[in-house]
């Protein structure tokens, strides 16, 4: 009897152990899906914790919710310049394969009978058979391919969004850095395909995307003669024009749109045969500062400031009570002077006629 009980307990314990191990091994739900665990409402904290534990043990109810966008958040995407250019290619190939297989087999059939007695006459020479096979394979192919192929290259322009991001932060928005874009072949999502990138999760649930598109990035170097001197002015000028669109990531409506341009220049005065090495850092600095000034102006006009105690707008000037002045000292002298003074002079301006 006791033995049976022991066996039963061992068997039961093993079952429990297996079941527990089985539960530990089950995979956790994926992090990307938001899992909502509904705790049972209770009055006291202790009860809550106890009940939560219970809920966790008993396999929680998992419901997937839609991605919630972070309110007042803007993801500032980087700028890419896409260059499509057609290339003419011409391939000429000559393939020739030559194979030579040769088999030479010799099969000696030795039928030697060992003569124990050793008479020469009885010994026969061993019979030999040999076969030789040769395989020759050769093929020649000639191919000529020509045509045009389109090469798409993406060039990233960095460094222009720093000031814009800081302006947006000061205006009270949450600025989100999107995932970097890496183009993998022709089947990949295009950098301007916002919906595709948003679905892929590049923008991390930002409510808006501030997308910049480079309209024109130009660099030119000139040499001009200066009138009245014997010198020439050598110039290196860089300019960039970017179009910004503020797009809602849910409805893909354009909330606002503006264009910002920047200009940087380095100049050198010299004679006809001077060598000019432009200072690229100076050009970049000037370009950035002019770009930022323009961006500041445009953003202040287009994107509303979230802060309640935002600064006074340009058109309104707060007047102190003291700046109005002491009214008792106010003096009004005649009418203000006219622009064309000569016609109205006789009536308004003092004229003196000298007596004899």
């Amino acid at each position, binding site marked *: 009897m006791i033995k049976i009980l022991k066996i039963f307990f061992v068997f039961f314990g093993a079952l429990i152990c297996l079941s527990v191990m089985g539960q530990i091994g089950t995979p956790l739900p994926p992090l990307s899906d938001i899992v909502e665990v509904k705790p049972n409402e209770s009055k006291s904290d202790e009860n809550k914790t106890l009940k939560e534990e219970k809920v966790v043990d008993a396999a929680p109810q998992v419901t997937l919710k839609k991605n919630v966008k972070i309110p007042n958040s803007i993801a500032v995407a980087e700028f890419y310049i896409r260059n499509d250019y057609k290339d003419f290619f011409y391939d000429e190939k000559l393939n020739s394969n030559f194979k030579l297989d040769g088999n030479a087999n010799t099969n000696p059939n030795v039928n030697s009978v060992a003569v124990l007695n050793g008479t020469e006459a009885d010994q026969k020479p061993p019979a030999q058979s040999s076969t030789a096979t040769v395989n020759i394979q050769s093929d020649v192919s000639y191919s000529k391919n020509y045509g045009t192929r389109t090469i798409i290259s993406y060039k990233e322009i960095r460094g222009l969004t720093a000031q814009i991001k800081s302006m947006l932060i000061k205006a009270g928005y949450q600025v989100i850095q999107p995932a970097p874009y890496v183009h993998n072949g022709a089947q990949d999502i295009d950098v301007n395909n916002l919906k595709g990138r948003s679905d892929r999760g590049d923008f991390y649930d930002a409510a808006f995307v501030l997308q910049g598109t480079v309209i024109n990035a130009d660099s030119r170097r000139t040499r001009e003669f200066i009138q009245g001197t014997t010198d020439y002015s050598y110039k290196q000028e860089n300019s960039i024009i970017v179009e910004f669109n503020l797009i809602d990531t849910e409805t893909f409506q354009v909330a606002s749109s503006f264009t910002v341009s920047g200009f940087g220049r380095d100049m050198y005065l010299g004679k006809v045969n001077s060598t000019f090495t432009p200072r690229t850092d100076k050009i970049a600095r000037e370009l950035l500062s002019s770009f930022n000034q323009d961006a500041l102006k445009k953003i202040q006009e287009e994107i509303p400031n979230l802060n309640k105690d935002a600064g006074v707008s340009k058109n309104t000037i707060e007047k102190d009570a003291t700046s109005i002045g002491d009214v008792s000292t106010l003096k009004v002298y005649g009418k203000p*002077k006219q*622009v064309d*003074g*000569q016609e109205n*002079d*006789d009536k308004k*301006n*003092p*004229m*003196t*006629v*000298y*007596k*004899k």
Partner: protein
Amino acid sequence: MIFKRINMKLCKIFPIVISALLISACTSNPSIDDMTSRMRETDEVKVLDMRSILVNNQLKVDVSLQVKSTNKNISYRFAWYDKNKFQVYGAEAWKPLTIGSGQSGNIQAFAPGPAAASFKFELTSD
């Protein structure tokens, strides 16, 4: 009693009347002779009219002259003074008077700058 009252009134009114008269006297314009400075012998030229006006804070002068004879070469110029009677804008060049004998004509001058508050018309001969 009445005398006293009249006296009191007069005492109050009298200085006011006198000051008003004085102020009016001060604001009357100087004569042409005051504004003209003749050097050497310039009796052949007679100034008929002289007037000045402020055009956008700058002085403009118009002088009407009559020339009796042209025995002597008469030249003229204007001297400009600021409100403190200091000469401003330096001395002008002497300009020969080109009005013919027995004729009358006008000379107009515009101040060289806004600092000129008054002027003097200068005449000289060879």
